[in-house]
């Protein structure tokens, strides 16, 4: 009786509301449980394999327990370095142009919409583009440079969008004040806007690079090696591998012991990724504390 009165003649409203809350809660716990299970599964298998030898030796076709990730890790590091080298100037430059220079017209809206759309394109599509454009048309072959350029395509939209967001977060009054003091547009951007936007941009760049680090599909598409004995020494000619490709190669193996090596490699990859994300979070936190407009 009291229930009916309280809920205004809809006795099931409260029940429905409770059920919905329980449903949502269950979903959340399912997510967390899956994640924990996954992590536990990988760490319990792979942790035993993680050692200095594992990181510093090349893989073996025959002996899973002697296999290491040196060439793959080396390839990944070179790839990320080159990708950063290509994507950061282009991405940040594009963002600055769009935010600070481009007139607000239909052309700009068109470009803006397309960048947002490109961020959602599956990475394999960029892999195929990379194969046609960098590997074949530009004749770069299956090289680190071609791989890094392909990964640049993948993460460029993310870098541009996050850099734009960081620029937009800089209050307009700062630009106005700078111009009113006789600063040129370039001086205003260089001395005021960029320093204020830098931590935000850096966060975006780190997150984008961590995405690039985990990508396998575009590298498979351009034909990167899934099994390789040496760290590439020439970025234009040498074959190269990458951690995700090595993991892919090992998990595909019929010998179960290679799966353990794969788990070890995943532990390394995850550790690097989590550290990068943590760095991004720290940067964002320090940024928001240091500057309150």
């Amino acid at each position, binding site marked *: 009786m009291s229930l009916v009165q309280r809920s205004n003649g809809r006795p099931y409203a409260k029940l429905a509301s409770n059920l919905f809350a329980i449903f949502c809660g269950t979903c959340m716990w399912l997510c967390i449980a899956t994640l924990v299970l996954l992590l536990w599964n990988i760490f319990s298998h792979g942790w035993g394999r993680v050692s200095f030898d594992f990181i510093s030796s090349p893989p073996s076709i025959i002996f899973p327990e002697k296999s290491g990730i040196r060439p793959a890790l080396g390839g990944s590091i070179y790839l990320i370095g080159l990708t950063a080298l290509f994507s950061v100037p282009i991405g940040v430059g594009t963002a600055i142009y769009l935010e600070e220079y481009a007139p607000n017209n239909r052309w700009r809206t068109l470009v803006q919409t397309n960048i947002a759309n490109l961020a959602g394109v599956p990475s394999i599509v960029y892999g195929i583009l990379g194969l046609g454009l960098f590997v074949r048309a530009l004749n770069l072959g299956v090289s680190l440079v071609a791989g890094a350029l392909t990964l640049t395509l993948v993460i460029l939209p993310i870098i541009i969008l996050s850099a734009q967001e960081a620029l937009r977060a800089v209050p307009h009054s*700062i630009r106005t*004040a700078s111009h009113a*003091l006789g600063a040129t547009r370039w001086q205003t951007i260089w001395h005021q806007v960029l320093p204020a936007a830098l931590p935000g941009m850096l966060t975006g760049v780190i997150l984008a690079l961590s995405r690039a680090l985990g990508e396998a599909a575009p590298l498979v598409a351009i034909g990167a090696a899934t099994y390789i004995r040496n760290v590439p020494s020439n970025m234009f000619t040498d074959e190269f591998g990458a951690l995700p490709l090595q993991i892919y190669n090992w998990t595909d193996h019929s010998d179960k012991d290679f799966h353990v090596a794969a788990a070890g490699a995943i532990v390394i990859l995850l550790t690097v990724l989590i550290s990068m994300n943590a760095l991004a979070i720290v940067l964002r936190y320090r940024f928001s504390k240091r500057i309150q407009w």
Partner: protein
Amino acid sequence: MPANLEANLHLTDVLPHAADELSALAQKVATKAVDFFYGDHQALHGISLGMPIHRVTALIGPSGCGKSTFLRCLNRMNDMIEDTVVRGEILLDGEDIYRRGADVVELRKRVGMVFQKSNPFPKSIFENVAYGPRVAGIRDRGVLNEIVERSLKQAALWDEVQNRLRDSALQLSGGQQQRLCIARALATGPEVLLMDEPASALDPKSTAAIEDLIFELKETYTIVIVTHNMQQAARVSDQTAFFFEGQLIEVGATNELFTNPREKQTEDYITGRFG
């Protein structure tokens, strides 16, 4: 009423003199039939106004009448707003600032601006004041120190901040921040100072400090100030211009305009009947 009589006598004595004195002065800034458009919207209609050198000109009028727009024309800050058009002439020392080939950056060094909402850079107090001279190419540490000290003293802020020049400007109080913005504007060595409601967000004490400051600054600068506060306009300015719906309705010596307005609209506004 003897007091009243005295006031009247005093005014009739002073008024023609004030007006004469103003018109005898050279005009530092003068606008000739200035129209201004935001896209299709005309915000200013044929404004002709002379601002005498080393005097304070107050712009008053109801919200949206175009005071800020007019002020931003004087240092071409409107250039930054897309799709705007200026017509007519704006002369600084007799030279049209919108002429072909005019150097906007140079203009803004000569015509400084203080905004309604204080907007210090998220940098140290020192860097805020040194920014103008720095972008103008001054690198010498000694010179910069000197400029910063002089500007902060002029803005009556030096005593409060001299020991914390390295601290972030954002730690200052609202009134201090606004004086910092004034110091920053003075550091570029302007000849004209434009102030858009510089005290509207401040408490009475900070407001008084800024008004005193304006009084001192007019010795060396030509000041144009927008204000919604009639008493403030009466206190600090020598000349007052009343704007209404994008038109300049009346301009005159401040005493004269406030005690004896020629136009009905001016009288209605200053007596608080609208706006």
